[in-house]
């Protein structure tokens, strides 16, 4: 009878979540109820465990990086920097095959490297890039795929809020993860670029070139000036944030604080700084942070209760009895996370599965940083996989009505293939994940 509790606990959690109960609250309540049952309806032990979890989560200074990075992104979104960047990037990519899409992806990369969150970035990029692409007659699926995939890059290109949550849960240094992401992030971005150019060359009707008679006559010097003005400030900020982490000057939290200040300075530079804008960004930051942290809090409550009902021991037993090679075990883990990504969002995925997987990963002798990179790639993929594809939801919020949901679903498919290719590359060559942190941080 008692062996059933852990299973029932998960069933209860999923039933609540699928009825549409807030994930954070569902985690707390199902943890609480099953903890209570396990302790024979004695309130004291489970409440004691939960108070400890609240204290622990609230006393974790590393988590300060979450609001700081969120704020940095919220200010940047409202700073008008995106318009400047888009214009500057277009000057150079406009005449390439698939130029608009290439420009959009380049802008996504720069944006992803200057913020830690996904949703809002995608909206900013989409609002800017969709109208010109439609005007130039781009295929609607290609537009959708480009925006969704580009928007999701924030997860895998540092700095990333996902890593701030993943690091402590997986017991891996956030600095190592931030640096380790650089190579896989770049590979993925490169794959996107190659694909978009490839489509434009092979199927020119999907990405028509601009009318040559409209060729711009802007002198090179003006082009350079516009580009410098748009590129230098964000690049300085990226260097300030990533540089301080890489150089070991500052902890991720401190780098995030520097980034938050830098974003405000940058908005001042573009003359978009105002009290209304800061107030707006401030509210947004509070809401997004509380949303993330409450899932984190709920997840840690659920996990501690899951341990109490014997779930973790039991799961270890099941996984230990599987008697498969470590490589197969790894594939199973990644498969579970991939499937979970259809239905759950990233914080829940990380909080529910990573604590269970990590001991096996370490026992099997896999590099934890490398494993986290694979997880990050899958988490980023989960932004694109229906039915719960946040990237598509955001796009639906901003896309004009002539872009249908079918266009969007069809559009992300090729990019899912690119995700798989990148994952295969990373899985085959663990050195790609561990080499850069080894060189830069020397562990």
């Amino acid at each position: 009878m008692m062996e059933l509790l852990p299973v029932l606990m998960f069933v209860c959690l999923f039933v609540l979540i699928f009825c549409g109960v807030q994930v954070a609250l569902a985690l707390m309540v199902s943890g609480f109820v099953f903890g209570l049952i396990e302790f024979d309806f004695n309130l004291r032990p489970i409440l004691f465990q939960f108070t400890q979890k609240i204290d622990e989560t609230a006393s974790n200074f590393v988590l300060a990086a979450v609001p700081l990075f969120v704020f940095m992104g919220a200010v940047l979104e409202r700073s008008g920097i995106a318009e400047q960047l888009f214009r500057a990037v277009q000057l150079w990519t406009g005449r390439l095959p698939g130029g608009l899409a290439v420009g959009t992806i380049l802008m996504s990369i720069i944006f992803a490297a200057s913020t830690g969150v996904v949703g809002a970035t995608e909206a900013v990029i989409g609002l800017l890039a969709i109208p010109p692409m439609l005007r130039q007659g781009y295929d609607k699926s290609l537009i959708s795929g480009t925006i969704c995939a580009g928007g999701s890059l924030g997860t895998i290109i540092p700095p990333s809020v996902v890593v701030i949550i993943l690091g402590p849960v997986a017991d891996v240094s956030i600095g190592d993860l931030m640096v380790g992401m650089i190579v896989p992030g770049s590979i993925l971005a490169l794959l996107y670029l190659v694909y978009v150019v490839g489509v434009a060359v092979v199927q020119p009707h999907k990405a028509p070139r601009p009318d040559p008679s409209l060729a711009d006559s802007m002198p090179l010097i003006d082009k350079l000036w516009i580009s410098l003005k748009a590129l230098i400030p964000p690049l300085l900020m990226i260097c300030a944030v990533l540089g301080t982490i890489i150089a070991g000057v500052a902890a991720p939290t401190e780098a995030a604080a520097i980034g938050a200040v830098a974003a405000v300075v940058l908005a001042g530079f573009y003359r978009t700084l105002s009290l209304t804008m800061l107030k707006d960004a401030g509210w947004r930051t509070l809401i997004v942070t509380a949303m993330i942290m409450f899932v984190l809090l709920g997840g840690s409550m659920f996990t501690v209760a899951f341990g109490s009902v014997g779930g973790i021991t039991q799961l270890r037993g099941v996984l230990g009895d599987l008697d498969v090679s470590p490589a197969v075990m790894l594939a199973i883990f990644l498969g579970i996370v991939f499937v979970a990504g259809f239905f759950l969002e990233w914080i829940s995925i990380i909080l529910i599965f990573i604590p269970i997987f990590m001991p096996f990963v370490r026992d099997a002798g896999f590099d934890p940083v490398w494993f986290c990179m694979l997880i990050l790639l899958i988490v980023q993929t989960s932004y694109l996989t229906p039915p719960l594809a946040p990237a598509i939801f955001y796009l639906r919020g901003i896309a004009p009505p002539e872009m249908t949901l079918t266009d969007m679903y069809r559009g992300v498919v090729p990019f899912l293939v690119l995700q798989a290719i990148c994952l295969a590359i990373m899985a085959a060559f663990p050195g790609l994940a561990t080499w850069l942190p080894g060189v830069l941080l020397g562990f």
Partner: protein
Amino acid sequence: MDFANRNSGWPGTLAAHLDRVTLWSGAAAALLFLPLVIVTVWEVIARKILGVPTTWTFELGYMLTGTYFLLGGAVTLMRGEHVRIDLVYSQFGPRGQAVIDLVFLAVLFLPFCVLISHALFDYMAEAFASGRTTGKSAWNPPAWPFRAIMFASFVLLALQVVAKILHAVAVLTTKERAR
């Protein structure tokens, strides 16, 4: 915030009052962002430029972070921004959604909030009575004020849960009257 419920009698009015409390606590939390940035940046300056690491920034930093998001929980609930998977939920009409909210919040989550608030009160009282300090840095402040914030945050969350329940009741009763 939600003045549409004014017509539905006292539940709507009470809910509006509770929402105002939540909104103010949220505004207070949002303002804590400023000291959080200052404290964090100050630590970098003190350590790297002045060469004198501070003793207090670490503890003040985590306390500000903790207070920030714990207090933010209620306003996030009020605005309906705690993530939910709405594949099924969005298929229900406003009435169906109100039923789900009402049942979950009243039967499961409100009792949970009350019990955990009670436990956090004891947790605070114990630290106050014993004069316990945090013991996490050289600054080593008393532990009870931060625990008092944890307690207050869950009380505020419970109040917002009550407001949500009242809103759900209002939705259900108003619709019935309209029929």
